[in-house]
């Protein structure tokens, strides 16, 4: 879908946004610097030739600190990856953006990472970001109403993180 000239345009419009790209994958993707994410998204929706007016999905993938025994085998650095699936309703083109966040902000466990919210670009991002915040623990700065959406509001922890441990008890109900 996206050729190198497209990446060049993006580079020209938002300098320093693209920090990596993989064209040979099944769904080719661009890696975007987290601090440039909002700017990139706005450009993609409003200014670029193919107007990516639809946000299909936001996914957080937790690449956790591996078990010491398996550490030698794994190929990744611990991080949380946000995957944005975009598409254009006019040309049906689709685009995958990935951005890498630390698992914990400033490496302090319990401090969830931050990234700019894209609700100002696509209003549909509202619930998707709430879901990511709820289940994977990413703080979307600038989100109008960042609350848990699927879990109860007083739930603790982020269930879709790999190191999540189900609580023993919730309001008197057995959890495990």
């Amino acid at each position, binding site marked *: 879908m996206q050729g190198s000239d497209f990446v060049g345009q993006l580079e020209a419009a938002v300098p320093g946004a693209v920090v990596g790209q993989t064209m040979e994958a*099944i*769904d080719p993707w661009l890696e975007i610097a987290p601090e440039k994410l909002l700017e990139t998204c706005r450009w993609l929706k409003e200014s670029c030739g193919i107007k990516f007016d639809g946000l*299909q999905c936001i996914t957080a*993938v937790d690449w956790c600190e591996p078990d010491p025994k398996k550490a030698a085998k794994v190929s990744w650095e611990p991080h949380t990856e946000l995957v944005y699936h975009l598409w254009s309703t006019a040309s*049906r083109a689709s685009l995958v953006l990935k951005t890498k966040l630390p698992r914990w902000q400033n490496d302090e466990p319990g401090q969830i990472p931050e990234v700019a919210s894209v609700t100002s670009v696509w209003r549909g991002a509202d619930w998707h970001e709430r879901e990511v915040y709820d289940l994977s623990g990413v703080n979307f700065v600038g989100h109008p109403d960042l609350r848990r959406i699927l879990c*109860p509001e007083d739930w603790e922890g982020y269930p879709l993180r790999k190191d999540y441990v189900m609580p023993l008890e919730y309001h008197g109900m057995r959890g495990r």
Partner: protein
Amino acid sequence: MSQLLDDDQRIIEFDVRTDEMLVNMGPQHPSTHGVLRLVLRTDGEIVSEMEPHIGYLHRCAEKIGENLTARQWIPYTDRMDYLAAMNMNLGWSLAVEKLLRYEVSEKARHLRVLIAELNRIASHLVGMGAYGLDLGTFSPFLYAFREREKILDLFEEACGARLTYSYITVGGLTADLPPGWLERCEQFLDQFEPVIREYHTLLTTNAIFVKRTAGIGVLSPEMAIDYGCTGPVLRGSGVDIDLRRDGESIYTAMYDGYAFEVAVMKDGHYPRDHEYPAVPTDAVLGDCWHRFFVRMLEVVQSMDLVRQAIDRYSQCKGPLGEPLKLAEKLPAGDAYLETECPKGQMGFYLVSEGAAIPWRVRARSSSFSNLAVAPELCRGCLIADVPAVVGSLDIVMGEIDR
């Protein structure tokens, strides 16, 4: 004493003020399609604000998916949109096949089309019947279920289950059709065709139904796209997108050679609209009536597709092919695929790091995005319009909460 008098006066002033009222519609409410909770801020009968609260049916499907192999997760997709479980199975199977770069046999392809389209009819029947229920008429619901029952009987014959089928699976289907099934399916289609006219009489053209739906909850195409609405909701707003025609090649290849017209209004006309009741004069493109009508058109469209699929399937001679191993190793990488499910575009995303069990599973639910737009549609409408609007989005809570 004087203070008391002051108090009294204030109370008198206070009494004539009208207050806004917060009302909880759901999670136990007859017309919220499951365990949806809508918090309404009402001023008399007028809803000034509506906020959906979801999550009552959250069953951690994505987390479970991280502990099962791709094929083992099929039954969990059944329980997402349980009214169109075949389409859910298909969506997940295709996403995994996309990652595996696997292609099913020709016979399996046509059988998948047949089954998925038949399930689309069943799902739209429930959507239509339940919508009648939302508007206060009970009979169309039972008429719809009468026909759906026959589809479920067919499915039961094919795979043994009536609701959660797990029939379409990674690499094909779990079993071939039993002998005589195609004839029974054709019989069903023949007797079902005239019944659709009954539905049009009972609902589509009913004066009260039109009054309750035409011009209510108008969703502009821009807003629909902005909120990520898909499926009949998007097409009801006049956006000409159907993934069966416009989707990724692995999905459109399935419908290769099938003839169908996307059910969307173009230049003021629906495809083959001379065969259907005329659009009422007070209906605005994007309102509840159009969303409903698009579904009714898709029922007919799916019937055509099923007929074509029966033709093609019966011409295929070779074997159906075996599904993949239960613990088929997935190559490292990720794949995202959206398919056109009855409720909208259902996306499945899986990340693998080389094991049989995916590292991360994600389901992008169509009802989730479709429901997100409901607060916009309900602003300033009457209480009675809330079920009309939410019903016209045709949501399934199993899919929203996963």
